[in-house]
């Protein structure tokens, strides 16, 4: 029993599919989250973000207009963003390692491959609460450290590059 006060959280759910939003919102409400904001596209998400300053964002990848990756980029780099450190849980039907890498390189904190399950949603929520990652700022990247473990203990060769990786729109 962890006794989390999920009722104190503000969560923004961004998905262009109303059914998926309802599914995620239902799960979060059952967890005890009270303040849940919804956005049906990236542009609306950024507006809600500025107005409501959520604690966590659950974000779809493939959407009309701004993709989830573009939304994350705006969150991390746009000066108008109230909190560039806000944890982002990426929710997507993409499941290949290449897509996971793209999401990681865009600055997501956690990744959920659809179909959504209660267990996965809980585990990712707990992960952003209990295991926040350090943040990195380089000339071309700002976001959670992409090396998930052992940053402090790492003694191997320096592989971090300043070279931007090409990120597909989707």
């Amino acid at each position, binding site marked *: *029993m*962890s*006794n*989390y*006060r*999920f009722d*104190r*959280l503000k969560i923004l759910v961004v998905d*262009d*599919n109303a*059914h*998926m939003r*309802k*599914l995620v919102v*239902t*799960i979060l*409400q*059952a*967890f*005890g989250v009270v303040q849940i904001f919804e956005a049906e596209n990236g542009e609306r998400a950024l507006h809600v973000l500025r107005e409501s300053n959520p*604690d*966590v964002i659950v974000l779809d990848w*493939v*959407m*009309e207009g701004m993709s989830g990756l573009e939304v994350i980029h705006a969150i991390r780099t746009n000066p108008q963003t109230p909190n560039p*450190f806000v*944890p982002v849980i990426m929710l*997507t*039907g993409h499941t290949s390692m290449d897509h996971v890498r793209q999401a990681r390189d865009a600055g997501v904190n956690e990744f959920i491959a*659809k*179909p*959504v399950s*209660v*267990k996965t*949603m*809980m*585990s990712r929520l*707990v992960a*952003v*609460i*209990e295991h*926040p990652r*350090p*943040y*990195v*700022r*380089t*000339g071309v990247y700002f976001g959670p*450290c992409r090396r998930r473990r052992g*940053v402090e203990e790492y003694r191997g060769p320096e592989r*971090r*590059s*300043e*070279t931007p990786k090409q990120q597909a729109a*989707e």
Partner: protein
Amino acid sequence: MKRQQPIELFMPPNMLKAKVGGGLGGIDMAAMKRAEAAMDTLKSEFNDWIAADVKALIEARAAYAKAPGGNARGALLRRAHDIKGQAPTFNFPLIARVAGSLSRMIGELPESTALPLGLIDAHVNAIQVIHKKGLHDTSDKIAQALCAELDARVDEVLAAAPK
């Protein structure tokens, strides 16, 4: 590579933990049970949801056939991608597999290459049939053969596409 700018690594204060507490840091089993129960109550709506998704896919296919340029291709991809991600939740794993094949083809074919309408239709028709017949069993031999055939045809199309 010579660095132009130093790399800054820092740990922001954990405001989330301060906000929600949770001494043991584990899974909240009571919240999990509540959420599972809430999902069970939602299940009565899943048939309507998958029907709406299939209808949206058919409409996106019709729009693409009418005007392949512009946003129609992206819209078709999004509908297929949505179904791929959601159909397992709605207990239609076979529909998810076919939609996955369709979204793979649309997503991996270069934008400059026209989508083969016949193969799109084969996918959309298969999804309609699986939905109408209410096929949930992934071990259904006919459905398996159909999915394998669609996968193979998509492989052929992708292999023939310009790199």
